[in-house]
């Protein structure tokens, strides 16, 4: 596991070192992706994600860049909702207007259900993207989820490749979670790897 995380770090740091010129990362179109999470290594969670961009300049030059993320996540490698599932939506706005980087911050919510409980969190995600090459970009995101009885933060560090064309992407990376409950006074954590496959229409 340590080796996997180290490899991801080297890959991401290496990518930023070789970026020669600033490029505008333009991703038109709706992107759908599926991601398998392994906590810590064996695939045991899956996510289906739809990303809907709303482009700067669509109506005028001053229109801010927005995107919507809608997802379904299940604690099952096969998307089965038996143990846990979550559906969520988060609109985000890009705070970096120029260059090859984007910094999205958003606010949204989700509905999650386990065999015993239903929870509805407020979600504040912060996502940094950096695209040194046309065929690769990396992503650092922190998804902060505020529940009625506690907090959950998910850190994702990943790299996306576009080996064939811009429409298809492969994402590899790592994920770490920390949960704190002020109601039951505990701190829990987990970590794992992720592998995703995306298609942009």
């Amino acid at each position, binding site marked *: 596991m340590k080796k996997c995380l180290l490899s991801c770090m080297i890959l991401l740091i290496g990518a930023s070192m070789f970026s020669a010129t600033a490029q505008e990362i333009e991703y038109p179109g709706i992107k759908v992706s599926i991601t398998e999470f392994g906590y810590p290594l064996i695939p045991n969670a899956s996510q289906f994600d739809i990303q809907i961009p709303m482009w700067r300049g669509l109506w005028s030059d001053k229109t801010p860049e927005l995107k919507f993320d809608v997802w379904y996540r299940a604690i099952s490698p096969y998307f089965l909702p038996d143990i846990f599932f979550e559906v969520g939506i988060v609109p985000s706005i890009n705070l970096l207007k120029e260059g090859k980087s984007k910094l999205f911050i958003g606010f949204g919510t989700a509905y999650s259900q386990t065999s015993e409980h239903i*929870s509805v969190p407020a979600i504040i995600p912060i996502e940094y993207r950096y695209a040194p090459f046309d065929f690769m970009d990396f992503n650092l995101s922190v998804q902060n989820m505020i529940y*009625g009885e506690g907090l*959950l933060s998910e850190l994702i560090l990943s790299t996306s490749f576009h080996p064939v064309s811009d429409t298809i992407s492969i994402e590899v990376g790592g994920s770490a979670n920390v949960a704190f409950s002020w109601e039951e006074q505990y701190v829990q954590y987990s970590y794992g790897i992720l592998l995703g496959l995306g298609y942009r229409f």
Partner: protein
Amino acid sequence: MILKYLLIFVMVLTFASCGPVPLERLGLVNLSVSAEQRSARSFSTNDRSIRATAITDDQYFKEERKVANRGSRLYQLTPESFILDIDNIVVYKKNGSEDYLIHELMQKTTNPYGAIIPQHYDLVHAKGITRDALVQNSIYNGLSISFLPGGRFGSNGLLSSTTNDGFYVLSSAGIELPTEYDDVTLDGEFQGIEGLHSGLRYFSFKSLQPIEINNGNLKYLTIGSDITENWVQNPNGEFGEWVSPLISTTGNSVALYLASDSSIDVSAYKNPELLLNWDMQDLVEIWDNGTPSDLRDDIVTFKVSDPFPVSLVIREKSIKKGTSSDITAPSNVNIAAIAGQNTMNTLQWINPRDEDFKEVSIIRKAGGAPSDPTDGEEVYRGHIPNYVDVSGISGTHYYYLIQTVDYSGNYSSGVVLDQVQP
């Protein structure tokens, strides 16, 4: 204007957020551990059994239990009770040569001085040794248990009252001996604990286990698929360092490793439960020690051909729910005892074998026994079979009413313990 409405939206959503943190989202799953006696035929096709390999090597056995010295086998007996004083249970996953991902499963009780109060469990049937411990939803290489082997005897043959930390250690097997032993006290036998079943004879785990450990103290049991040094680690009980999946430490304890060819895969279950099956069938043997006419020196031991017949079954936990039609009170706790040290009273017991046992309630009253659950102050409610009361006043005579509660809300008649708090 947009910012103002956005801020209102954010505040409303934040305040409207509800519910507990779903730890399942972290890839965690609730894992329980129980113990039960089951025949091989009673396992369903969905249960997955992990059988520890049998131990047959004679070289590590206590001197009188080696083939050349133990004489003839007289009896094979099945214990009616098998108590283990458990300190901790973990599942582990091997990441590297000495790198383990470890999840502790037990909810431990400690006294104010940091000593872990062991939990008595009768492995013939113990529901919910651990309940809903959160572990990563994954495949594990094994399970490790640390326990206290017991065997503290006074010169009179009675079990020494308590340890220096102020609690009882009862790891033992309760056996119905043949009548010819009615007037004979055998080596390793103990008496003197209130609540012991009068029809049974109790032998400490330390004396029953056949491994020669010199100054060591057999107190770790590990069942794992990655155990390369299976059998006994540190058999001479030397002080020094060794590595166990459970703990890396120094000391003179001895760890017993049982190899398995299967891993523990909890990922296929919604509410996985590990069922510890310590096979009691003919577990205890009596050997004549080479003197057929003398009963007093007979050896009572775990069966020397397979002294630790332990297996694990992974299965879907059955969720217990009460019914309004159930008005049967659960059984009382067993072998309830009170001890103490300095400014605390330590209570220990064994939970009943009732299938619908949920928890224990303890009512405390000073100066006299509580007559019912409303007569006094409830100081404990839970399924862990011990309680350390540090809230009392030294010199006060406290009475504790210990009642069991089932999932239908029925209370047992209760057991009363009392002690002047040290």
